[in-house]
Every structure is written in C-alpha cells, then in structure tokens.
C-alpha cells in the first residue's frame, strides 16, 4: 500500500488476512491513476478519469440524440423516459426556483449540468469503470466555476456596480450597527466561500462514497481466508447495500448541485431588499 500512481487496480489481489499481509486500506492513492497516454509529470497526459469524463458526455449526448433527434408528438418509450427527466429538471427545479418567465433561458444549462453530474457520479457503480469522475476535484470545480462566473456576471448586469455589492453583501439598513459585520460575513460567504462549497459538496460526497465502497470491497476480498470468510460475507453484504445507497446519493448530489445553481441564479436576478 503506497501512494504509487502507477497502481492500476485499487488493491493488491494476492493479499489476504492471516497471510502476514496488512490491510491494503483505500486512501488518496485510490484516486490517482497512471496516465493511459502521456507523462504524468508534465501537463500533457490522458488518464482513466478523463476517459470516463469524455465517454460519459458521449453517452449523455447519445442518449438524448436517440431520444430527441426526431421527437414525435406521440412519444416512443425512449422519448418518454428522456422527456420525464427533462421535465423533472425544467419544472421541478428551474421553474420552481427561478420561475417560468425568467428561468426558461437557463433550462438548457441546468438540464445539461444535472445529467452531466449524474452521469459522472454514476460511473462509480458501473462495472469496469467503477470510479466517480466527480471524486476528482477538477470536474466539480470546473462546473462550479461556470456557475460562479454566470452568477457574478448576471448580478452585475441586473444590478449595476453598486447594486452588485449591495446584492453580494446583503445590504440592509434595518440591521443598524450590526450592518458592517453582516456585510463582511455575507461578502465572504457569497463571493469567496460559496463557489468553493458548491464544488466541494459534490466532490466530498463522491469521494467519501467511493472510499466506503472501496473499503468494503477490499475487505470482502482481504478477509477471504480461514475464519475471516464469515466476516467477508458481512462485508460483501455491506458492499451491496452501499452500492444501492450510492445509487441514491449520486442522483441526490446531482439534484442538489443544480438546485443550488438555480438558487444562485435566482439570487442574482432577484431585486435586492
């Protein structure tokens, strides 16, 4: 067990309990992959995570291409499923938070965000891939940056320079002497911490989920020796349970990510108090 980025599998296969072999616990090294192409030390390389990211986007586009390329007024099965997903985000998230009139413009962005994040999360339990792309901070950070830039520019456009600062600092005269303190806190919270938490919330959930799955998977294998077999069974059951749980968490985190996106956009468009 080392932080060797050349390791391909998540753990060593010839290591069992009572064999004088320590538990190959998962860790940060489980999230690093040897480049498939290029040099890991330079910035020109291609690894498993990138492959999954590109493959995932192709799968999403392929799915919606098949469903919506020639849509029918009376939908087929595939179109019906895709429509249900599309409608869920459009009505359930965008219209609910931003409103139908103002929100319509942001529907494509939010729908793309949701299905992209969901797909990237889903890789965690898809056999052979079994790695959530969003557990690498670069991917959620990129998406959060897009949302952040959109939020800042929208706020500027809607409220002007002074209005922007009033909006960001939650300027409210009725606060009286507490106003400077509140403004300071709001400024840091909205402008500096928010994009960070937006990205890390998704990243940390998927990171933790993947670590848990790895832990039980590795334990199931590691305990497969002597009396350990009984415990291996328990561990395997936990693997299955956690996989089901992850399936739920993946969808939930994608939903939370786009819900926050919509809340931020709504905040930028709203009249400041």
């Amino acid at each position, binding site marked *: 067990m080392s*932080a060797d980025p050349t390791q391909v599998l998540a753990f060593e296969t010839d290591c069992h309990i009572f064999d004088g072999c320590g538990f190959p616990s998962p860790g940060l090294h489980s999230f690093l992959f040897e480049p498939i192409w290029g040099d890991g030390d330079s*910035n020109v390389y*291609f690894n498993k995570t990138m492959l999954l990211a590109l493959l995932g986007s192709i799968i999403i586009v392929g799915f919606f291409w098949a469903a*919506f390329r020639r849509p029918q007024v009376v939908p087929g099965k595939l179109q019906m499923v895709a429509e249900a997903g599309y409608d869920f985000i459009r009505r359930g998230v965008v219209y609910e938070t931003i409103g139908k009139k103002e929100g319509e413009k942001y529907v*494509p962005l939010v729908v793309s965000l949701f299905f992209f994040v969901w797909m990237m999360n889903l890789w965690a339990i898809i056999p052979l891939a079994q790695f959530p792309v969003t557990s690498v*901070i670069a991917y959620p*950070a990129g998406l959060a940056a897009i949302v952040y830039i959109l939020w800042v520019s929208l706020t500027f456009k809607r409220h002007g320079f002074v209005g922007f600062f009033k909006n960001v600092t939650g300027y409210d005269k009725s606060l009286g002497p507490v106003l400077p303190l509140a403004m300071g806190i709001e400024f840091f919270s909205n402008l500096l911490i928010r994009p960070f938490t937006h990205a890390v919330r998704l990243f940390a959930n998927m*990171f933790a989920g993947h670590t848990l799955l790895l832990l039980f998977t590795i334990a199931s294998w590691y305990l497969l020796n002597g009396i350990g077999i009984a415990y291996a069974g328990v561990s395997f059951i936990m693997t299955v349970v956690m996989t089901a749980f992850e399936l739920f968490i993946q969808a939930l985190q994608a939903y939370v990510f786009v819900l926050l996106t919509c809340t931020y956009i709504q905040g930028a468009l709203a009249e400041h108090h």
Partner: protein
Amino acid sequence: MSPLLTIAAEEMENPLIPPIPELVIGLIAFVIVFGFLAKKLLPNINKVLEERREAIEGGIEKAEAAQTEAQSVLEQYKAQLAEARHEAARLRQEAQEQGATLIAEMRAEGQRQREEIVAAGHAQIEADRKAAASALRQDVGKLATELAGKLVGESLEDHARQSRVIDRFLDELEEKAEATR
C-alpha cells in the same frame, strides 16, 4: 512551467487542488453535452412539446366548441317549442273569442230579426184593424142609416146632415170605447 503549477504537481496528494489537464478535459466534456443539448436537442423537444400542448388544447377547445354549439341549439329548440306552445295557446284563445263574438252577433241578429218580425206583425195587425174599423164604420153607417130610414119611415135626403149625425154618433161610440179601455 509556472511556479504555481510546479507546486500543484508536487502536491498531487492534496485532493483539493485541481489538476489543470483534468479541469480542461472536464470542461470540454461538459461543453460537448451543453452544446448538443442547448443548440439542437432541447429546442427539438421543446418544439414537439409545444405542438403536443397545442394539439391537446386544440382538442379541448374543439370539444368545448361542440358543447357550446349543442347547448345553443338546445336552447334554440326549447325557445322554439315554447314559442309554438304560446302560439297554439294564443290561437286557441282567439278562436274561443271569435266563437263567442260570433255567437253573440248571431244572437243579436236573431233578436233583431225577431223584433222586426214582431214589429211587422204589429203594423200589419194595426193596418188590418184600421181597415176593418173603417170598413166597419162604413158598413155600420150604411146599416144604421138604412135602419134609421126604415124606422123613421122617411128618407133622409139631406146628405150633409145625415153624415154629420152619423159621424157624431160614431165619435161618441169611439169615445165610449176609449173610456172603457
């Protein structure tokens, strides 16, 4: 390589520092999805959803129109029926009134004719009575003169005196008759 990137490369262990290549690939992957969905696929489905909504609403509107028409036709029909009933009642009433006036007219006419006939009868009787009276007066005068001539035995030649006597006599008779009547 910039110093910052060198630090990033050295500290690959920190999971909160995003590796630049992955950041770029991640953004490219997202832009692919967003591009296809926003430019082609979602406008496609929006058009169809709009068409479907219109089709459904069109159907509903058609049904509503048909219902409204049926309602109006029914009301028209009811109004016509009521009018016809009213008309029939009016006609019946009119006929009754006409019948009543006709009967009244006929009754009046009959009354009038009866009175006419009675009046004509009275006039006839009066005329007959007068004729009979005058004939009787002449006959009675002649008979009385004859009788008086026979009784007196002399011919009353003086005609003027004779008729005066007779007239007076008859007048007295009439007065007596008037008095007793």
